[in-house]
């Protein structure tokens, strides 16, 4: 899952107005006219008692679980829909709709579905709904982006009202992760986004209102099979501007903000509001992606030099206000397959210069203004990203590399990245459950459009290890193989690991029961309740 960003911003400018005749100077008149819509007040959110209001930087794009791929969409979709299994706070898969799962052999699994679960319209959820959901993703004309990830799945057979057989085309250890697909009722259409307003799931909340780009209102499901939520519902309000989010929280119109905060606002919120603030280490992995077909970047010394030249500590301390930990690789220390003993590259600009010299890229004028070479770096136009890019530019210039920063709105940027149209870019991976993601990112057969190996990394040893690890279902053996893979990747650097973001939640003190998931999931909302406000 990748993080998305909305590039939409509320603009409100107030600049001194010159005393001019408007009819004579059309540009200025138009400038005023253009700025007026930005001054429109934010839409008011009605607040019935027991309603929890959460602010988001950008809204979801699709809530249908078969289509929800970006982080925000997936998080909200998971409140409306249940899946057979779901990762817990430690990202270990726990049964949800599934009663049990059992491997008959290395390519056949029997899944029993719990009885008693029902959709929001009262219809019981049975094996037929599960089969329908998987079939509608797998059918040849399906446009679900999740189809690729389920390629290994040959068929889902209905064995009885609460029993299914999953048949795989070959041994596939990460199979269980495919049980996290949200289950839709049999017959639910999937082809158009207009049906998004009437989605019916079986989760703790039902969809009451969905205004794309503005808000999503969820109502508590009173008949929820695990017991109803103590909230009346949850409103996700999209507020693109970080300052406005903080001000609305201060005003009391927002109850909770998770992660969508400027790092510098956290101390301000602490001192200017009664917010309860919690910070917990997370596993959202930020990295710099590299085009390995670029004549300069395909040299390993150069990639190593880049890693040595980046002062991640300074960026984390100052730009991120300590809300991150330098990363050694994609998997965070809390993950079962995490391998800590890998080559690491702390900030050593001299070593970077030495490596670049050795690679044959001598600095033409020593400490002078001429660079050794020029690279372009793509990022989104989110302010924090731009600031990080500027800091990187400065740090790389110290070792003689001229970094040209290009910022784009999310859609353009993501399109370029997916097509491999970049030299360097920065992005993050959110919610890595199974380490098989490495196959998708670094196997030579995963080069787009077949996967997400966007840098076009090719390493036969990695390929072999990845294939082995995906076939092997013994956890110890998989851990050993993925450990090896992590060491090789940390040596070869197809990605430059930057940091794992810490998760932050800012909530009103009366909001109780919220737990921070390492991937920023909202899974704990079904336990959240509003305590009585203590009288001062």
């Amino acid at each position, binding site marked *: 899952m990748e993080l998305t960003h909305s590039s939409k911003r509320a*603009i409100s*400018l107030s*600049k*001194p107005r*010159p*005393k*001019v*005749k408007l009819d*004579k*100077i*059309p*540009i*200025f*008149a*138009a*400038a005023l*006219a*253009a*700025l007026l819509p930005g001054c429109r007040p934010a839409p008011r959110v009605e607040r019935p008692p027991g309603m929890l209001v959460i602010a988001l930087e950008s809204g979801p794009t699709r809530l249908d679980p078969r289509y929800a791929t970006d982080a925000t969409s997936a998080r909200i979709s998971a409140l409306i829909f249940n899946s057979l299994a779901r990762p817990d706070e430690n990202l270990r898969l726990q049964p949800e709709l599934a009663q049990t799962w059992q491997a008959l052999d290395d390519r056949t699994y029997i899944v029993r579905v719990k009885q008693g679960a029902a959709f929001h319209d009262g219809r019981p959820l049975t094996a037929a709904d599960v089969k329908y959901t998987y079939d509608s993703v797998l059918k040849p004309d399906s446009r679900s982006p999740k189809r690729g990830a389920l390629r290994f799945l040959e068929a889902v057979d209905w064995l009885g009202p609460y029993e299914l057989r999953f048949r795989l085309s070959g041994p596939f250890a990460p199979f269980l992760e495919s049980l996290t697909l949200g289950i839709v009722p049999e017959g639910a259409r999937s082809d158009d986004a207009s049906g998004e307003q009437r989605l019916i799931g079986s989760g703790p909340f039902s969809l009451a209102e969905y205004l794309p780009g503005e808000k999503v209102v969820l109502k508590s499901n009173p008949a929820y099979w695990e017991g109803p939520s103590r909230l009346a519902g949850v409103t996700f309000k999209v507020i693109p501007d*970080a*300052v406005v989010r*903080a*001000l609305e929280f201060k005003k009391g119109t927002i109850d909770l903000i998770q992660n969508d905060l*400027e790092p*510098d*606002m956290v*101390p*301000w919120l602490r001192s*200017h509001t009664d917010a309860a603030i919690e910070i917990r280490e997370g596993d959202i992995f930020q990295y710099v992606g590299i085009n390995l077909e670029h004549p300069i970047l395909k040299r390993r010394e150069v990639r190593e030099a880049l890693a040595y030249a980046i002062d991640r500590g*300074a*960026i984390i*301390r*100052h*730009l991120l206000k300590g809300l991150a930990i330098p990363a050694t690789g994609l998997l965070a220390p809390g993950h079962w397959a995490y391998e800590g003993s890998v080559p690491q590259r702390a900030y050593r600009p001299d070593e970077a210069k030495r490596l670049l010299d050795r690679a044959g890229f001598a600095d033409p004028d020593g400490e002078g203004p001429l660079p050794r070479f020029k690279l372009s770096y793509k990022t989104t*136009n989110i*302010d924090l990203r*731009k*600031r990080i*890019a*500027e*800091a990187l*530019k*400065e740090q790389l210039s110290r070792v003689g590399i001229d970094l040209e*920063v290009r*910022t784009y709105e999310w859609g353009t940027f993501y399109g370029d990245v997916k097509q491999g149209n970049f030299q360097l870019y920065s992005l993050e991976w959110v919610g890595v459950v199974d380490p098989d993601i490495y196959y998708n990112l670094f196997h030579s057969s995963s080069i787009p459009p077949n996967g997400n190996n966007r840098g076009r990394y090719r390493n036969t040893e990695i390929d072999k290890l990845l294939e082995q690890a995906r076939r092997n279902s013994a956890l110890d053996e998989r851990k050993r193989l993925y450990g090896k893979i992590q060491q090789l990747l940390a040596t070869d650097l197809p990605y430059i690991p930057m940091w794992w973001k810490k998760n932050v939640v800012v909530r009103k003190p009366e909001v109780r029961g919220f737990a921070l998931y390492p991937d920023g999931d909202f899974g704990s909302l079904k336990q959240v309740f509003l305590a009585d406000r203590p009288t001062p």
Partner: protein
Amino acid sequence: MNGKVFLFAGVAILLVLLATAGLAPWIAPYDPTQQNLENDLATPSRGHPLGTDKLGRDMLSRVVYGSRISVLVGTSTVTIAVLIGLLVGSLSGYFGGWVDHLLMRLVDILMAFPGILLAIAFTAVLGPGLDHVVLALSLLGWTGYARLVRGEIMALRERDFVHAAQALGGSPARVIALHMLPNLLPPLVIQATFGMAAAIIAEGSLSFLGLGAQPPTPSWGSMLNEGRQFILVAPHLTAFPGLAIMVAILGLNLVGDGLRDRLEKKGQR
């Protein structure tokens, strides 16, 4: 009397603005792009009289260098726009007829578009950058000058000295350049002053939207945008560039108003 004081104040502000822009490397205490992450969001102090921004860059140096962008964009935009406006306006006013019709309809079409939106579309297509901002603003800003020049020329065309010049065999170019131009300079100068103010604001708006000056180039508009995120924790990031824009525009408007009072009065005599 009062008018003179304001005009003088305006001229003084403009001189300071021009001097700051011209002498930026000598006035600014630091390199405006020199980062120092360890000293981010510092409040104004002896070492950094206007504080530092999020990347630890000296705000005074950035505001000083920002004046260069404003002066550069303001003057070049207005120069290009005035030249186009002069050409179109004098052709239209001097020859009248279908030439006038054609050119004025073109002006009408251009004026029908909301200028800044067109400029946004323009820079979005060409790509962000100051050169594109100047191009967009001047290609859209000349219409006002063309109308003004046309009106003046049409009025002058009927004056005796023009008829005399024409009777003596002066070519249209010669008549326009030597006999008419000096007479339409005053209103043109006044409008150009206001036009420069408008161009500086438009550049600020486009840079604020990320379409103008690209980082790390300090422009007042982009500084406002960068500081916006910190308006609650470090208001000096937006206060100083905002103040700079205000003072510069105030200066230009005072000069424009003062000139109008003086030149137009003279014209009435």
